[in-house]
């Protein structure tokens, strides 16, 4: 069972918020809930299950699931570092910092460290240009990054 009864209950709450027949509007929350109970990852089957539950085409749910960075399609680490590489961050040296982070962790973006603790993703603008370069770890933003600052933050992850 990919969607648990408790997840279904929560999805139903979201469905309630939209007009009748527009249940597919709940897709983002539904994907999030289903991802949370499946090792923080969305397989094709999970996406299809969400689509079926919301009575929408599988591909339409897949469009949403692949558009946003907060859905994972491969196994991820306990913590996810989402590194912005869009224009403000890029101009402020994000590319070099990403390389620095990759070398430090011994993984490429999109991969998970061997101990399964950290995965690194390159993401589009997170809306914190004023603090560029920046990344997000789980639910927390870290701004004005430098190589040293990154080392400190990452070393502190457990």
């Amino acid at each position, binding site marked *: 069972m990919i969607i648990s009864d408790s997840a279904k209950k929560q999805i139903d709450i979201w469905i309630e918020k939209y007009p009748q027949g527009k249940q597919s509007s709940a897709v983002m929350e539904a994907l999030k809930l289903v991802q949370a109970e499946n090792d923080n990852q969305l397989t*094709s089957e999970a996406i*299809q299950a969400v689509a079926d539950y919301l009575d929408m*085409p599988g*591909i*339409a749910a*897949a469009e949403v699931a*692949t*558009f946003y960075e907060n859905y994972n399609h491969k196994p991820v680490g306990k913590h996810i570092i989402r590194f912005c590489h869009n224009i403000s961050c890029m101009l402020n040296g994000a590319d070099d910092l990403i390389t620095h982070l990759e070398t430090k962790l011994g993984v490429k973006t999109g991969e998970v460290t061997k101990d399964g603790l950290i995965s690194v993703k390159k993401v*589009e603008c997170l809306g914190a240009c004023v603090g560029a370069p920046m990344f997000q770890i789980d639910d927390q933003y870290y701004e004005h990054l430098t190589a040293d600052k990154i080392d400190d933050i990452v070393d502190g992850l457990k």
Partner: protein
Amino acid sequence: MASITIEIDGNIVNAKAGERLITITDREGISVPRFCYHKKLSVSTSCRMCLVDIEGVTKPQTACSTPVSDGMKIHTQNEKAKASQKAVMEFLLINHPLDCPICDQGGECELQDVAVEYGSDVSRFSEGKRVVAPSDIGPLIQTDMTRCIHCTRCVRFGSEIAGIMEMGGTGRGEDLKIEPFLAEGITSELSGNMIDVCPVGALTSKPFRYELRSWQMASADSVARHDLVGSNLYAQTYKGLVKRVVSGDNELVNETWISDRDRFSYEGLAHENRLLLPQIKVEGQWKEVEWNVALDFAIKGLNKNALNSRKAHKLGGLASSTATTEEFYLMQKMLREIGCENIDYRLNVNNLDDPIHLDSNIKLSDLECVDNVLVIGANLRLEQPMINLRLRKAQLAGASVSALNVKAFDYNHKTNHSTVSPNEIATILAGALKVILEKNSLEAPSYITNINPSELSINLADKLLDSERSVIVLGEHVINNTQAASIAQMVAEIAKQVNGKTLNLTSSANTLGAQYAHFLPKSKGMNTNEMLAADMSAFLLLDIYPEYDFHHSNSAVEALSKDDVFVVSLNSFNNELVAQYSDVLLPMAAMYETSGSHVNINHDMQSFAAAVKAPEEAKPAWKILKVIADLLELPGFHYENVTQVSEELKHQKIYEHKQDITIDLGKKSSAIETIWMHSAYHSDALLRHAKSLSSSKIGQTNSASMNTATAKELSLECGNTYLGVPVVVSDTVADRCVFVSSNQSTDMGRES
């Protein structure tokens, strides 16, 4: 909408307020480049290629999405417009592989055309281009997604027209990919239209891959004959072979779409089973001979077995419903001239004593304007894709659709399915009719006085009474219903009572043509089933394959194989069975190889000319029939071309056996009901020989569906076969019923 005037490139143009600019420029013949805009799809404004300059608006605007207002001044060619269009072109080409020399779209590519006009010969982009791995989406469509410009026409076609969203855009930005989900392949019965709408070479025809350039081919207008719609299309030919089929435009018939069935059936023309040379059977051995020898042999046989001995009443003429109207006409004219009235095209009907009579009195284009649809016995999506497309539009516009079917078929629009056994249909309709008559304060005829309308009947009746424009669609599954004639009669009566229309889909291909040509037994003639049961001495057959075509396939083969029966077969394909019972095989031209006409459900007689010559010695059947008539020295066959035949039959009225039927609701069978349908891509000979269609998902359908209880009663389970067809247990099938959709021959199957 109010009339307004606007100015385009300095010219005053009339328009309606709120019209989109691109519709006006298209109407006026002003060229505005575009990729994502398609007149039959929603506006997505995603390519930005149609930018134009509007006075008073700082930034260039997209013509496809901008509504016009009075006095608007538009420039499509000034510097600002041109510069914007060029900029967009450059942007679109950044990731495009520019592999035109190896791309099938080359020469008919919208991107190529626009690039020639707006592109630059040198690219300023020196970074790496993205590459998208192609995905295998089935045997009909080839994908080369690196070429995709993300216009989303194919995506919109799927969700808006085909009714199943199969393609979608996954990922974003640089990673955006147009692809189907779960690599399941495309299953739509209309999928080929995505090839037509794709403005670049991302989606091309797989069977046509690397065959030819579009400019090498000649293009002939033609009409599809696989169903009652008669979609308009172009057969593209090269050196005497049909190489590809693309859709034609006709708002009244197929708009601009065609079904995959119509698009890919041409592949069958080149099948190795084509009958290419005339052959005669001498002492049980087949001999390939010249035409005159074969015809001589045929005439002698016919004379000996049927004519000289005044036994024309022992001669039978049967034709496939895919014949052209002219073929039907000449064949019946010839047979009647020699005194033979045994003429029929209805091969798959169990009971021809009480045939179905129901007019189709609604135009195809009006189908999308109905507000209530009742479908009885049809899997519309697969059986009548073009009609379903219109009904789907009606549903999306608010019409309510109800279906009485043996199985809850997968419709691509919202339908209230009622799964009912075939032998309940008559009673349900009688109940509905009773309710309607009562509401109209009319007396109910005796056969319904004892009926107690069920909830379903009341519900259907209420919907019909509430609507202003209903249509009742009678589908093919009803043909062999024991109460078929009563059902048809009640449908007509109900429609009359509620001022609705009826659509009779119980026969297909060119059966209306056959009726116009009077290809039916009159007065003393025998119908198909009577012929098969009678002691016949000769048959003249037009493109018949008994193992697929007859309801009584076994008795048909038996009747044709009798020692003293002389069989002349005009066929486009050869096979063992045909060779077994025939005495002469005359190779005939297939679709696209013959001229003639098709009568569609609008009663429009659509003529078409042969796109190619028939291969080797095969000849158009109308010519073969004419020559046989000449050799029999019959008067009135001095035709020089097929148009003269069409002219002659044009004035004929449709011929039907109208007979009063007594509605008898008691006539029910208690046995398990089986509805046998050929799967959508096996309904006629050409389709059965079209390889890519056969290997597609729909073509592979071969199942006998029944619910758990029925399976138990028959002691069957998944993995077994029923009448030779693999069993599928599905609780969407009505109790004590089996729905067979098969791509194999009827075998002994339909004998029940």
